[in-house]
């Protein structure tokens, strides 16, 4: 190939690199709103010093104590909110 910008090999590598995730990942991400549930509930617990202290010690215990589902998206959302 005489392409001065990108060889055929690189074109092919680029296509492989951007193939995208398995469909199951997309389905799981699409479910995030329902998995997270009420965002207001997350905002409420974030405002609680007692919750933050408990979460720092044991995240899953803190979620259970606060009545939140101990799911990965809820954990991720709380980590994100507490870090910001």
């Amino acid at each position, binding site marked *: 190939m005489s392409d001065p910008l*990108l060889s*055929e090999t690189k074109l092919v590598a680029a296509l492989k690199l*951007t193939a995208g995730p398995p469909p199951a*990942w997309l389905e799981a991400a699409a479910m*995030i*709103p329902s998995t997270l549930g009420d965002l207001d509930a997350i905002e409420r617990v974030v405002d609680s010093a007692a919750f933050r202290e408990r979460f720092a010690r044991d995240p899953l215990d803190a979620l259970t104590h606060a009545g939140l589902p101990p799911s*990965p998206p809820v954990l991720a959302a709380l980590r994100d909110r507490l870090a910001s």
Partner: protein
Amino acid sequence: MTDDQILSPSSIAGPQSRVRRPSSSADDAELVARCRSGDDGAWRTLIERHASLVHGILRGAFRLEAHDAEDAFQEVFTRLYVRLGSVRDGEAVRGWIAQVTRNVALDWLRRSGREMVSDTAVDERAFEEPLRAVDEALTVRAALDRLPRPQQEILDRFFARDESYQTIGAALGIPPGTIASRISRALAALRDEFEQGAVEQ
């Protein structure tokens, strides 16, 4: 860099990014607005639009294992969903997602204790070149998206999904004996489209 520091809308490696997305930025702003109002379809479209970007960064640039990348992928979109209400510039959401993905990947590497350059810390500079490669790859993918649908399909099936001539032939209803030449023509078209896009930058 924090999640809130927005990179240029189409850039993951820096402002020199060549990814052309002339209309999707405005669409992103509209999608974000619709997501805020609880539109599940808009949320799904937003995910599908940026899935390759997130996946490419996690797997291609940061080389996360598949199971780690899957969790990190969900974490990126969870952060996006939680922060939809505070996204200041809907048109910059792509750059924001790229930055969040980079930060999530670094967090994963730190949490998993993988060693990079030093024994105790992840060296973020080690990922600059891989991120540029992903950026360039996304430029190629954008060029692919501008090709006629049959050419997109045959290149994606053969190179990205590793499908055989037989499988492609059966799926697309074309004789397997013609597939090699079709792939060759489609690759040439992709190269032309990529070059044209680069010239227009």
